[in-house]
Structure formats: C-alpha cells, structure tokens
C-alpha cells in the first residue's frame, strides 16, 4: 500500500443565496479533475462552514456567493477558520463580487476571487497549484 494523497476541497454557499448552479459546476469540474469534493448545500452560516472544513480536514475551500453579503460573511468565516487553527487552508471565492471589493477580500486572507465567465480549467489549475504543503 502506497501513500495516496488526494486533494480535498470544500465548496460552500454562505448566506441566503438560493441559487447554486455555479457552485455545482465548479464542484463537478473539480471532481472530474480527480479531487474529493464536499459540498455543503445552500444557506450556510459561517460557523457551519468553518466547522465542516475542520471536520473534513480539507486542503482548499471555495466560497460561492451571489447575494452581495460577502463583506459581512467572509470576514466572519476567515476569523472562525483562524480561531480553529485552519491557517494552512487555501480559500478562494467566486460568484458576484464587485471588482472594487476584491482587494479588501484578499486582505482578509482570501487568496483569489473568480468572477463570472471564469473557465473551470482556470479554477482547476488554480486549485492544483495552490494546495498547501503539509508535513
């Protein structure tokens, strides 16, 4: 038996969106790229997302948001992740996040923000290249 590390990704939908086509498209694409993808389902609180990331021991978290509440929800999520010691997890975001908010999101520790029209190939490449190293 050899060591076999798989990339584990959490795709999460914080807040009150009722639309998750985009999240599912990304989840499916990452699955087809050979990753193990956990999807939270809709309407997740920051606590649920952080706790799920902890229990599932994921390498990467993708946050999908369309409601415009990213400035309220993302800081809470990032704070909780830090509190739980999940500082070695790569977090990226997607959905509808205005250009002028991107810098602020990155300051929170969100490593990349993907807007509408991003190809799944690009996201796969990004995730592969940004899996945190672990000892």
């Amino acid at each position, binding site marked *: *038996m*050899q*060591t*076999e*590390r*798989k990339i*584990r990704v959490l795709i999460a939908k914080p807040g009150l969106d009722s639309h998750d086509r985009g999240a599912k498209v990304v*989840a*499916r694409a*990452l*699955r*087809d*790229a*050979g*990753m*193990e*993808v*956990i*999807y*939270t*389902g809709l309407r*997740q*609180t920051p*606590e*649920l997302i952080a*706790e*799920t990331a*902890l*229990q*599932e*021991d994921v390498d990467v978290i993708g946050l999908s948001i369309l409601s415009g509440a990213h400035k309220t929800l993302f800081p809470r999520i990032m704070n909780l992740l830090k509190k*739980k*010691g999940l500082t070695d997890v790569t977090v990226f975001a997607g959905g509808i996040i205005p250009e002028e908010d991107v810098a602020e999101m990155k300051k929170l520790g969100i490593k990349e923000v993907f807007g509408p029209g991003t190809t799944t190939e690009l996201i796969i490449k990004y995730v592969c290249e940004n899996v945190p190293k672990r000892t």
Partner: protein
Amino acid sequence: MTKVEELTQGVLSGDVRSIARAITIIENNAPEAKKLVSSIYPHTGKAHIIGFTGAGGAGKSTLIEKIVREYRRNGKTVGVVAVDPTSPFTGGAFLGDRIRMQELSTDPGVFIRSMASRNYPGGIARATKDAVKVLDAAGKDIVIVETVGAGQSEVEIIKVAQTVVVIHAPGLGDEIQAIKAGIMEIADIFVVNKADRENASKTAMDIQAILQLNNKETAWKPPVLKTAALTGEGVPQLIEKIEEHRLLLEKGLKHKRSREKAEAELIEAIKEKVVSSVLEDLRKEGKFEQLVGKIVEREIDPATAAEKLLKKALKDAEA
C-alpha cells in the same frame, strides 16, 4: 513528543482537529498511519458501531440525520463516517451525504466525516474501519457508518459494524428481490423508509414473508420497521431495536462477532502485506513484465502466469 503521540493524545481527548487529521493520515496511508492505528487501538472497543446500507436514494443520509438527533436527545455523542463512490475514471469524488446532516455540524457532540471509497470494493473505503477506530477512541458513544449506495452484493459493512441496518425504499422490487442472497442476509434490522409512500406496507410484507422462510433457530430475528426519514416517523422505534440488538450482543454474541471481525481484519492485513511484498520482489526480477506481455499476446492465461510467478515465492515460504 512524536507526531503520532501528539495526535493520539489529541484524539483521546476528543480534539476535533486531531480526529480530522488522524483520519486523513489513515485515508492517505501516510507513513505514520500504521503507528497511529496501533497506538489508538488499545483505546477502542467502547463505541457501538452501526452500519447503514441500502440503495442510493433510499434515504440513508436523511434517516441518519434523524437518528443522530434522537441519540443526542438521549445524551449520546455520535460520530458518522459517510462513504460515497470514487470515480473509476478520474479518481475524483463528489461527497454529498453530509448535505443531509449539515445542520448537525456545529453540535460539539457530533463529528461527521465524508469519505470517498477510493475504489475499494464492497461499499466502504479501505480506511473506513480505521476511521471508525479513531472515533471510537475519541470517546463517541455511537459510531455510524453509511455505505455508498449499495446494490445486492456490497456487504463489506458486516466487517465494520456490530449492528447492520439495511434500508429499503418502496417500489424497488418484489419478494423475488427479497429472497436473493447478499445484502438481504446481512441485516440485523430492516427498514422500509419513505413509509408515507404507497406500497411501503407491501414492501415490508415482502421482506417479512421471506424472513419467515428462514427455518434456522436464531437468538435474533431481524425485525422489519417502517420509517419516514423526512418527518422522523419511526425513528425512536428504530433506535429501540438497535439498542435491543446491542444488548443481545453484549450478552454473548459480541464475543463471537468480535472474533469474526478480528479474524477478517487479520486476514486482510496479511493479504495486503503479502501482496505488496511479493509484488515488489516479482517486479524487481523483470519476469513480471515479461509475463504481462505474454498474457497480452494470449501465449499464457493470467492464472497460469500467476502460478508460475508464485512457485518460487511459495516454495520460499514453505521452507
């Protein structure tokens, strides 16, 4: 302190991060995996391990959510390992069982872990039984394993669980399906879920009828229960039956089952060890590749080739 000692302590104290990391290490078969399992092993054997299996869409995850809630009301802590299939083509997996139980995530008395089967046969993953050990050692009173959506012959769960619940949904077959070997034989408890649907009673009766054909005298006769996972109907009765079964196991069956489980695990561990060491030797000699070529050219069949290759290895073992 070594990493393994640190993790073991974390697991034993119920630290969520340590539990999660330990399971990942086991899943990936990382270099410290074996040591980790052997260091937590003495602390296992306390939890009651319940397996849930049945066809995809029967309502396993939804029912488990309700069951966990009921256990929590009774003051028990619960660990869940939910297995979903890995793609045989890409190696990827979409782990979706958790969605049905997601609201339980923030309950500190509950730990849920999604697991990809990584193409292990039989409806669970290779790492499932050791992940169960981690949750057991972490002090969970109840550990629930949800198999992948299982067909007729995915019965590996009996090697992991002490009580096996097989879940059916109405309308998926008649009594001829119920008389077949395999999954219908492993149930300690049958559940017909979606009891609010038409035909639920008929399905329950079909199963009941086939069970009555069993003329062996046994200490435990698998009951057939009806539940509606969405409303929680029938869940307290199911837990009662699980508890009855657990008590029966405690009284005597447990020893027999533990021995059977231990035997199966030992055989599996030997197989794994033998196969990997023998294969490694064979590959080194180059004869392996040569025979693969001959099999492709139809000069030799795989079974004869294996015999040829193993002749020497088996002789060595005999001597």
